[in-house]
């Protein structure tokens, strides 16, 4: 069982690139090793969150569903 994210970003209803922008702004504020969750209804997030991690040297830790069934993308701060 993966550890719980310390921050959950509610990006429901936001369109690309807003969810990735929120992730980029927030990730530096959590401790290295912590998880941030991006809860997003935007279909592009499924591709763009992992791509952002690859481009910015962070770790994509997979996805699951929020309580309401919205996709939730997990990112671990590694630097």
């Amino acid at each position, binding site marked *: 069982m993966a550890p719980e994210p310390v921050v959950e970003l509610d990006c429901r209803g936001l369109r690309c*690139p807003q969810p990735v*922008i929120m992730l980029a702004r927030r990730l530096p504020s959590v401790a290295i090793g912590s998880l941030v969750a991006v809860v997003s209804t935007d279909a*592009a997030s499924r591709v*763009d969150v*992992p791509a952002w991690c690859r*481009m910015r040297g962070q770790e994509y830790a997979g996805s699951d569903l929020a309580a309401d069934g919205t996709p939730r993308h997990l990112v671990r701060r590694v630097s």
Partner: protein
Amino acid sequence: MRNGAPIRTTYWDTASSEPLHPAARAALLAALDGGFADPRRLHGPARTARLLLDNARAAVAESLGVRPDEVTFTGSGTEAVHRGLLGLLAGRSRVGDTLLASAVEHAAVGHAATWWRGQDVAGRAGRIVGSLPVERTGRVSVAEASGLVASAAARGGVAALAVQAANHEVGTRQPVAELAGLGVPVFMDACAAMGRVDLPEGWAVAAGSAHKWGGPAGVGLLVVRRGVRWRNPFPGDDRADERAAGFENVPGALASAAALQAVVAERDEVGSRQRRLVDRLRAGIAAGVPDVEVVGDPVDRLPHLLTVSFLYVDGEALVTELDRRGFAVASGSACTTSTQTPSHVLAAMGVLTHGNLRISLTREAAEGDVDALLAALPDVVGDLRRQVGM
């Protein structure tokens, strides 16, 4: 625009549609007057129309290195894709019920595959459309395709593979010859590649679209290799060419053939110049703008096309601002599409889908235009990022 003078537009969206080639314009104007008659009739004007159509077919065949009786003119590239793929599947219906299509095919292939699956006859095991995955460059993985063909063959027969010659969004060329070696006939959508690069070997049926190489809109090409079993998937017609339907667009066919001959003749010179310019753009963008992903294969690609994605940038705003500054370019980002979904091509490759730009050069593209775009991009992208606080 500034100082009141109209700004010159640099049109770099030839992957959507190439401006009419001068050779096509001349042929079109001549044939509009001489090629109006019904090529099937027995009088003089009909013989003239028939002769022009036969000439167009012969010129296309020679340009593509195929036989004239393998060439059919259709009403569009999309119609050529539909007739080509569905006719191949119909001809193979006793062999198998599975179609394997690359994950980055044009929507015309996707729509045809969905329609084919829905036309299934009740009581059968059911038609299957499977996806051939691609690498980060957009290139189909031959190893994975080989495994998928083997496992689909074990469940039943594989009717066909659908693999494009080169990708329409990122320019990556596909390993068509290697995939044809897997023993299943290949339908090749060559709409993005035809005229621009030598076509690969090994395919059974191919489709092209004249307005993508400088011919007029409203002309597609269907090529069915000799010995391939192709059955008309739609109602027949009584034209001279049994694979075609509807009254022949003789002027359009002749103009398309003239343009194809011309672009094939100019290809070495134009293609190598475009390749140098794209390399210059690729290096210049990577050096001048941070947080950018240049996508597609850097070498094994179409010569005229470059696709990049800028982090934190809205694709629609990017295209609109570049248009204001005199650059007409395309984008595969969700906000620029009618469906509001990101490009399935970029998604299948696993590359950034937002802030996407597709630049496709004309045959006249020059170094000065490239440098003008390279000078504008850092400002444009920087402004858009500042507007969203990045």
